[in-house]
Every structure is written in structure tokens, then in C-alpha cells.
């Protein structure tokens, strides 16, 4: 479709090329793997932020339970691979579809709800899922939602568990997601979402079927979350319920708030900053003999400050630009 040279000739293409070189550079660093892990985690958060952005950003509904889909994806892929021996490449799309279905299911009763009521239901939903994986040992196979020894994906007989492989893996997933979300955002569907977020009634009088387009957003957002979860399951090898706590939802929300709700760039930047800042803080807080968890204080401060002074994100001081 597009020739390699045309990509390389553009400045942005060069950046992409540069990103692909990161693992080579880190190979010579003392803690290169660790750095790659941080990068991969940041990409994962970027992917999740893009997914959350579809509902919270594009259609303007505050989703406080996004981690629920992350959880569904993680457990679907994790269980299929660890318990039933599925290949990752089969488990990934199944996880995405499963997540999307739950997005629809969760969406159905909430279609009429707006604002804070929607937020509460999403919150309750993810907390319920959290309880279910924690308690239902027969389903998960381990206590506390433990799924052990999730195998790494294999490609032509090679196991892709090394950090540089994981790095490319998530980078590719991220770029594909970005492509899909970008194209949707700049299409008839994306415009309909935007219209819904600004004025539901006016959108209806434009012939936009509210329920249909909201459901579509829920499903796509959920599927992206589930893809993130599936990646995470094999990345982490062991997953447990504890990973999918409520605060994870808030962290992702914080990312899109920081970058500016409703824009792709904002979601990416917010996730990049907080995804890596989180790690820096974790280390530096422990130097200050403060609990590593206190980094959430800073996330909280970011939410408050952004809403107060820059509701449109760090990049923009005024309202949306095209």
C-alpha cells in the first residue's frame, strides 16, 4: 500500500523508525530490559487510553469502570491460553470480541442514563467483575483470581517472551489501534459520536440513532480494553484480581484528562506522561521513604488541577480545535 521509502521520507515516519530502534539502543544499557518494560507498559496504557477515549472522549460519557474490560480481556486470553492451551493469536481476537460483547451488555441498560448515573453504573459493573474473578475459583482455577503461567505467544515456533519482542508486539498493537480509532474518529461514525457528546437531542434530529451509535462506541471501547488485557496477560505471565482494581480505571481516566478529553493526541500524550511518570515516582518516592502507592496523590492532584485550570488538556488552553 505505502512504500517504505515514502514513510521514511516524512518526518513523522522517521520518528516511527526511531521508535523501532529503541530496543537496539537499550540492548547496550545496563537496565535495558527494565527500560523496555517501562516503554511497553506506557504503550499499553496508551492503547487503553485510546479505548477509554472512545466512550469518555468521543461520546462524552464518563466511564469509571474501564478496567472491567481490561480484566475481561486479560482473563479471557489468560484462561484460554493457560488452561485450554490456545494460541495467543486465537485468544487475542476472542478476547476482543468477548470484551466487546460485554461492552454491549453493560451498555444496554445504561443507554438512557447520562452523566453521573452512567458513571456510577460503570463503576459498579467493574467492581462486580472484580469480585467475581476474586471469588469464583471454579471459573478462574485459582484463588484471588490467580491465573499462572500464561504462555508467551509463539511465531514460527519461536516464543516471543523477550522484552524487545514484547516491545514490538505492543507497539504494533498500539499503531493498529491508533489507526482504527483515528479512522473512526474522522468518519461519519466519529462525527456522530461527537454530535452525541455535545447535544443528544440535536444529534437525534440529524438522524443519528442514539442507541446504535452509543452501543457501537461501548463495544469498540470495550474491545480495545480487552485487547490491552490480552496483551497484559501474556506480558505479566501471572495475573490476579488485584491488578484490576478500581484505581486502575482512574489512572487511565487521569491520562486522558491530562492530555485533553476527546482527542487522540491527548490520550497518547497523557498516557505516555503518566505511564512513565508513574514509574519514576515509584522509584523516587521510595527514596523519600514514602509509600510507592502515594504516587496516586499526584495523579489526584493532576485531575484537580487540570479541571480547574486546563479542562481541555495540557496542550490547549482553550476549547477544542479541529
Amino acid at each position: 500500500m505505502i512504500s517504505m521509502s515514502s514513510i521514511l521520507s516524512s518526518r513523522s515516519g522517521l520518528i516511527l523508525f526511531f521508535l523501532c530502534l529503541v530496543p537496539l539502543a537499550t540492548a547496550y544499557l545496563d537496565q535495558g530490559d527494565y527500560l523496555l518494560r517501562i516503554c511497553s507498559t506506557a504503550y499499553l496504557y496508551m492503547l487503553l487510553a485510546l479505548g477509554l477515549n472512545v466512550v469518555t472522549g468521543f461520546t462524552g460519557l464518563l466511564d469509571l469502570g474501564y478496567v472491567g474490560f481490561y480484566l475481561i480481556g486479560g482473563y479471557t486470553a489468560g484462561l484460554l491460553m493457560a488452561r485450554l492451551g490456545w494460541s495467543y493469536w486465537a485468544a487475542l481476537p476472542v478476547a476482543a470480541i468477548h470484551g466487546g460483547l460485554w461492552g454491549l451488555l453493560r451498555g444496554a441498560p445504561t443507554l438512557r442514563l447520562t452523566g453521573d448515573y452512567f458513571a456510577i453504573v460503570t463503576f459498579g459493573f467493574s467492581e462486580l467483575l472484580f469480585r467475581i474473578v476474586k471469588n469464583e475459583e471454579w471459573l478462574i482455577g485459582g484463588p484471588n483470581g490467580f491465573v499462572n503461567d500464561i504462555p508467551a505467544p509463539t511465531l514460527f515456533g519461536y516464543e516471543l517472551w523477550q522484552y524487545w519482542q514484547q516491545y514490538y508486539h505492543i507497539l504494533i498493537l498500539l499503531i493498529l489501534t491508533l489507526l482504527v480509532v483515528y479512522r473512526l474518529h474522522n468518519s461519519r461514525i466519529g462525527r456522530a459520536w461527537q454530535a452525541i457528546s455535545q447535544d443528544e437531542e440535536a444529534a437525534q434530529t440529524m438522524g443519528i440513532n442514539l442507541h446504535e451509535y452509543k452501543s457501537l462506541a461501548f463495544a469498540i471501547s470495550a474491545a480495545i480494553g480487552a485487547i490491552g488485557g490480552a496483551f497484559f496477560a501474556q506480558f505479566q505471565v501471572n495475573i490476579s484480581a488485584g491488578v484490576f482494581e478500581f484505581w486502575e480505571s482512574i489512572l487511565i481516566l487521569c491520562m486522558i484528562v491530562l492530555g485533553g478529553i476527546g482527542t487522540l493526541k491527548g490520550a497518547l500524550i497523557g498516557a505516555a506522561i503518566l505511564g512513565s511518570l508513574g514509574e519514576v515516582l515509584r522509584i523516587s518516592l521510595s527514596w523519600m521513604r514514602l509509600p510507592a502507592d502515594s504516587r496516586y496523590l499526584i495523579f489526584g492532584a493532576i485531575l484537580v488541577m487540570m479541571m480547574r485550570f486546563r479542562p481541555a488538556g495540557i496542550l490547549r488552553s482553550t476549547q477544542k480545535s479541529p
Partner: protein
Amino acid sequence: MDIDPLLEITGLTKNFGGVVALAQVDLRVMPGQIASLIGPNGAGKTTLFNCVTGLMAPTTGKISFQQQDIFGTSAHQVAMNGIARTFQNIRLFSEMTVLDNVRIGCHTQSRGYLWAAISRNRAYREEELQITTDAQELLQFVNLENFATQIAGNLSYGDQRRLEIARALATNPKLLLLDEPAAGMNPQETNDLIALIRSIRERNITVFLIEHDMKLVMRISEWITVLNYGQKISQGPPEVVQSDPRVIEAYLGQSAGSNH
């Protein structure tokens, strides 16, 4: 007349928990007309529009559009059927560009769905091109072509009104409902609006409007319906309505009516 009415409302009633907003209203709009709905504040005019466009569920009655029953149809379906509207207190997608506002109006005119949007196949690209061209054309029609890339919320009041009309036109309606299009406009703007409404009619679109500016109403309407306290008190061509004592009474008070 053997032409069928475009919009026919019979016995339309709307209750809000005991309060009757519309009581047994009968009304017709003929194709190609510029019709008006007038009446004092709180007479139920906007409620009637809301019932027709599906934003409110009427209590009882019959609404048919092109001989098709549209009573209780959902708002988006009404739009798909060919009824477009504007709002009394301008409801643009104010954070989007002017062009995008109109392109959203083109929603009814396009089919592309998930796969098309993701793959950007030929059909999709042609459709997007078509939408953009149409939207451009409509912006020209309402004299906003130079504002296409601006954020709708930043336009002046009169421009916002016209943009809302362009957006409604983009849904390719057969009937356009305008809710107080001249509110807050100065005489010059009002004159332009009259011209605009006339040229909309020339596009074979029937116009049905609510308006308080009587000069405007009397100048362009071919048929006027008057509501008061949710009831139809008069209807007819401007001259007839103007001299109807019930109308004068409703507007100027009892004594003025008898003075006349």
C-alpha cells in the same frame, strides 16, 4: 384542493403530569407552503414541534407525514423520513467546526459503516467526498462558506442561526421546521432571513415556522395557525388571522380586541 397535505396533525394532545400543553390540535401543512405557527408565550408551539420531531412522545392524537403515520416515531427516524428542524435556543454542536456541523447533517444521506470507516474503501471515500461537497454547497447557500473551518460556537448570533438552518437542510428534508428563526435578529438580518426562507422553498422544501416577529410572519406565510393555551384558536391566510378578534385578544388583551 386535491393535493394531499405533507403534514397532517389531528387531535394531538400532550399532557405534562396533569398540565395540558396541547389540547386536541388539528393542523395541516401543504407541500410547498411556507406555513407559520404563532401564539403567545406558553401556548404550546415548541411542544408541538417536539411532538412532531419525536423528541417528545405525544399523549394522544395522530401525526402523519406524507400519508404515513409517524406518531411516536423516534427522533432519528423522523429525521430519516425527511423532517428537519432548528431550535429556539440554537443548539449547534458548538465545539465542532462549521463544516462538520453541516456534515453531521449529511448523516441521513450516507450509509458507510464500521468496515467502511476502518478500511476507507473506495465507496467510503466517494461518500465522504460527496458529503463534503454537499456541505460546502449548503454553506455557500447560507453565505457561510468563508467560515467553514471555524468553530461553530465562535460564530455570531445571526451566523449561528443560519448555520443551524444549513445543518437542518443537510439532512435533505422535505419539511423544515424553524423554531423562532428571527429571535434576536436586527431588521437587516430579519430581511435576509426572509430571503433565505423563500429560497429554501424554491428548493422544494416546505417550511413550517414558529415566530414571534409578526412582520416576518405576515410577510412570508401563506398559512398561519394560531395556538393559545394549547388550543388552536384560529387559522388561515395572514389577512384572515390578523383580523381575527380571538387572535388580537390573545395578543393584545381583551380590551384591545373589542376596541378593534
